[in-house]
């Protein structure tokens, strides 16, 4: 399972205003942050966490295997290359508006380094009552109200909808094993197919709720994988942005939300997922159907 609670976490860009608030929330929720990096700010502390000038320097003192990247978009490629060189195994990129070329380059490097990337443009991931990476859920009191432990995983292309879905499940007695905002960009690290493959082997997960959007082929790729290999998991999916199907070439919301030459339409994604055995709902409120009730 992603996010082993024993694993040491570092935060790149830790001295930024948003990152600093995030660190306080993560620590309060139990995430094991050991250190941070901001070039030129080595020697400082953020909420008692030591800051280093580089990942290499940090690794002389700690064994971080997870990094949360919250640096300005132009600095993301260099920051992640440093993290891969330092040997991290999980890299969560929160930064928004990362150039597509940089995202692609860093993913090539991550594959070579054997590092799993979540994002860019994700609010993070959370294992309820264990730990969280990123700003997902916001303040800890809000996190505790929205997320509860259980056996349904939430995978979402929207950070906001990750919490909305978890909150909806929680209020109906359905807990979550993990919730992941995969990122709203056209080119992202782990996507639905990779993550469902991982969850397949996770004994704590019995079901998956997917939130998809127009654009890209993440939903179609998952459908293809499910047709080939099948799955033991109950998978429910809700896809938003049906109206975008009729507005070819118009970009809404996330950078990935665009239908081009008929590719990436919601109707096509729904059809592909249904053919692969996924329970696709038209109304958000129907997402609960068949999910395992009760908390762990």
């Amino acid at each position: 399972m992603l996010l082993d609670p024993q694993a040491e976490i570092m935060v790149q860009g830790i001295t930024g205003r948003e990152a600093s608030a995030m660190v306080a929330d993560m620590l309060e929720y139990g995430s094991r942050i050991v250190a941070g990096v901001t070039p030129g700010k080595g020697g400082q502390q953020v909420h008692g966490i030591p800051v280093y000038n580089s990942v290499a320097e940090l690794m002389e003192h700690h064994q971080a295997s997870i990094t949360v990247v919250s640096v300005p978009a132009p600095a993301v490629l260099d920051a992640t290359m440093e993290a891969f060189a330092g040997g991290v195994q999980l890299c969560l990129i929160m930064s928004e508006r990362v150039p597509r070329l940089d995202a692609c380059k860093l993913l090539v490097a991550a594959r070579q380094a054997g590092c799993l990337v979540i994002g860019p443009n994700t609010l993070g991931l959370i294992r309820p009552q264990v730990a969280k990476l990123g700003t997902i859920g916001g303040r800890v009191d809000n996190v505790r109200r929205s997320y509860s432990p259980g056996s349904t995983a939430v995978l979402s292309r929207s950070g906001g909808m990750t919490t909305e879905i978890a909150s909806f499940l929680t209020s109906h007695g359905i807990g979550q094993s993990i919730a992941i905002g995969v990122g709203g960009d056209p080119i992202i690290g782990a996507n639905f197919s990779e993550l469902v493959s991982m969850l397949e082997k996770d004994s704590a997960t019995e079901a998956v709720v997917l939130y998809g959007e127009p654009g890209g082929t993440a939903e179609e790729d998952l459908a293809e994988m499910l047709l080939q290999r099948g799955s033991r998991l109950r998978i429910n999916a809700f896809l938003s942005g049906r109206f975008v199907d009729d507005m070819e070439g118009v970009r809404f919301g996330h950078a990935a939300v665009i239908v081009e030459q008929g590719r990436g339409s919601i109707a096509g994604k729904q059809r592909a997922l249904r053919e692969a055995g996924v329970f696709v709902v038209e109304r958000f409120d129907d997402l609960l159907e068949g999910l395992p009730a009760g908390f762990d």
Partner: protein
Amino acid sequence: MTELSVEVKVEFQRELYLGVAWDTANKLPVALLGISGGVDVEQSAQPVVRRTFDPWTGLSEEVAGEIADEAGLGGETLAAVSTTLVQLAQAFIACDAVIAEINPLVELAGGQLIGVDAHLEIDDDAVYRQQSRLRSLGKVVSTSTGRPPTPLELEAQRIDAMDHRGVAGRVVEFDGDLALLIGGGGASLTLFDAVLRHGGKPANYCEIGGNPTPEKVAALTELLLSKPGVTRLAVIMNVVNNTRADLIASGVVSGVQKSGRLPAEVIVLFRVPGSWEQEAAEIMAGAGVPVCGREVSLDECARLAVQGGSIDAS
């Protein structure tokens, strides 16, 4: 039509399509070559040959040659086309393009190749490092809707750029009477679908999130209400992660007041659960606006916004 370009007519024996784009499934750039069809490449019976390449090293002459060979080219044409494809791939990377095309590249009877039209789109998120190239082009107009932005959409862009905190813009105008102040990105899509399904007529699509300042929210609210024919406003967001619900609430109330209307008469419902929701609820209750909590689903909120009626917490 604003401009007309007049060119010399060329007689050709074959139209080729050369392109480089992103293969988002494989997360790599992909080179494309079609040897028939040209501008109608999508309808062509002949398949387009596709090959991904490493963005660090670019498209090699060798791989480009394989693509041209697989597409059925030979001899001098193969060499010339593969060299052109390599250069197009270099331009794609150097320009931070999301798509680069030469379409059609025509082959004259004597074997000479001429690029008749070309198309290159730059990644919005890389514009910051493409400034000198963009300046060399002269006037640049950014459109994301496939049509020139309306005055209302332009004003929303200006409001969003007022400061760097949060998003309160990204407006697309529609012909309806129900103004929507909605967010974040995914919830906006969800709500717009749901409003249409319940028979509503949205006056706009929009997106707020990332904790915008009350000033931005107020200005956007006032703008949405300025559209002729707009009678009602719904304020609906997903359970917010980082956005402060009370800042949204105070911005909305102030925007409605600036438009010269009463919040209680215009705002059909306010649903922004999450951080500072209690404070937000107090602001809205003080203004006489119906407030929904997280227990009222996005879908139910859309129904209420369209049809009115009592709040049924499911």
